[in-house]
């Protein structure tokens, strides 16, 4: 009986591990038929974009134990890279997206080589600095970026097929969420993934058993940056207008918060963390001025009552009860 219970579905080695994925696909496929209006599609798209970024970021924070407080910077670089190349230089959107992602990947890789040997909070500070530098450059180089008032972004098109409107974009973002979940689950379960988890536990132990920790961290950092950049590009095309706020410090903090509240090193934690925290401001929108207070209280309460994050804490709770 326990094999069908909720927690086992989420355990990486459980034979039932495909059930949650099937549920996710089913939910994503049904949503368009039950969502009452276009605004709900917009909410779903924003959630999906965050989930994808957060899943990749969780590989870095949860599995490598490397906190990044500058990931919105990569998101912003992706968004502005696409915006500038497509609108000022008339590049095809797909090419702009790919070029931007490659450049961001290289940049992240270079940075990683330089700063990933830093420990704990120093790494956090270095990434924080990086993110803020990006956002200051985006704010000041108004000849390219339109400055703090932002710039508009042309529609997205692949091979002559134009993607416009919430309903079309929904399928793009939903597909990316599924891809991210599958990809991350595979990484986590691969030998490399187990090595990654070992990193979070003890770096020296991992090194002792012959794992090239530095190389792993560098690659995961670059990977998470590329994912953020690609989602930045797509979000920019979807919204049609961007401002430097997308690269801001508070956005970086938001992403880390989603990772931790959902649960470190948990793919499904990222899904729930990103979904809940993206929804929260919309749910609180009628509180008029009390949102900040309410958001803060929910954050603190979550960490007090679900100290390992929502999904891992609940899994532990149910496992204990039923075991």
């Amino acid at each position, binding site marked *: 009986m326990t094999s069908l219970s909720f927690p086992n579905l989420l355990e990486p080695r459980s034979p039932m591990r495909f059930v949650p994925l099937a549920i996710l696909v089913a939910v994503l496929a049904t949503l368009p038929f039950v969502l009452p209006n276009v605004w709900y599609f917009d909410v779903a798209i924003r959630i999906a974009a965050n989930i994808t970024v957060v899943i990749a970021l969780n590989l870095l*924070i949860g599995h490598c134990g490397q*906190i990044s407080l500058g990931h919105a910077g990569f998101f912003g670089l992706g968004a502005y890279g696409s915006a500038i190349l497509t609108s000022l230089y008339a590049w095809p959107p797909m090419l702009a997206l790919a070029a931007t992602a490659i450049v961001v990947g290289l940049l992240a890789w270079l940075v990683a080589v*330089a*700063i990933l*040997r*830093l*420990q*704990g*909070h*120093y790494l*956090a*500070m*270095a990434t*924080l*600095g*990086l993110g*803020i*530098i990006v956002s*200051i*450059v985006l704010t*000041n180089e108004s000849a390219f970026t339109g400055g703090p008032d932002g710039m508009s972004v042309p529609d997205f098109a692949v091979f002559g097929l134009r993607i416009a409107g919430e309903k079309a974009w929904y399928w793009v973002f939903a597909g990316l969420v599924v891809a991210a979940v599958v990809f991350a689950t595979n990484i986590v379960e691969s030998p490399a993934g187990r090595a990654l988890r070992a990193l979070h536990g*003890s*770096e*020296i*132990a991992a090194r002792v058993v012959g794992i090239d920790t530095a190389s792993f961290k560098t690659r995961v950092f670059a990977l998470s940056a590329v994912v953020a950049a690609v989602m930045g590009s797509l979000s920019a095309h979807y919204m049609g207008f961007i401002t430097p706020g997308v690269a801001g*410090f*508070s956005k970086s*903090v938001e992403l*880390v*918060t989603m990772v*931790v*509240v959902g649960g*470190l090193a948990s793919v499904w934690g990222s899904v729930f963390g990103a979904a809940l925290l993206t929804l929260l401001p919309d749910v609180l929108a009628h509180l008029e*001025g*009390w*949102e*900040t*207070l*309410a*958001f*803060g*209280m*929910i*954050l*603190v309460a979550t*960490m*007090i009552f679900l*100290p*390992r*994050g929502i999904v891992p804490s609940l899994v532990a709770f149910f496992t204990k009860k039923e075991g």
Partner: protein
Amino acid sequence: MFQFLQLFFTGLTIGSSYALAALGFSIIYNASGVINFAQGEFIMLGGMIAAFLSLAGVPLPVAVIAAVVLVGLVGLLVEKLAIEPAGKTDATGIVIVTIGVSMILRGLVEVTLDKKNHALPAFSGTTPISVLGATILPQSLWVMATTAVVVIALAVFFGRTRWGKGMLATAHNRIAAQLVGIDTKRVLLASFGLSAALGATGGILLAPIATTSYDVGIMLGLKGVVAATLGGLGSGVGAVAGGVLLGLVEAFTAGYVSSAYKDAVPFVLVLVILVVRPRGLFGLGPATRV
């Protein structure tokens, strides 16, 4: 020459306030190994409470002291109601708790006080003092002098008193500290009270020069954390040096290079210094996690 001097004074004033913020970070970092993202809100609370008391007709010295004490109490409350109950989460989780606390404090001020900017009256007038052709405000002298006094007082506290030594011991080795009978829980509580009061002092001193509002904590907190990182997390000397260095670099960048990119310079500096000296200028810090 006098432009150099003018920029130097400016940098020293701002740097002193960064140093106070950085000291607050360092004290909590020492006691708990956590970067307290609510430190900026303590700075904001100090300025805002003092400004409101002063608006309500409370004499300035009373308002200042009351604000410092009140914010110190807020610091204790934060530790008791949020940090301690979250003891089961890991370091990253605690960081999220402090982010949550900062939102609560900011949200509370937003709802209960107001969203406007306020200027506290200067402590001793606004007539600039002329030094070799450059000018300096009396309030700047207050900022520098108070920072100096606070630094000396802290040095005495940590170097000479039983409590201070206990706090330092906890920072070096928590379990050993417990073994020799130091109540590490109370050390953590005290460190929050002390940091909050320090932050409030900085916020109050700065309010007549820089004005204050419910959202000034974010930027001041960031600058403080950068200063603390520059100097080396957990190092008192480092915090002060990092703060002053940051202030001077900002002022000289604005004066000689580009005022638009002045804010980027501290962060570039942090990147460079961390690459060259991964523990900051004065940091000893704990060894690699095993």
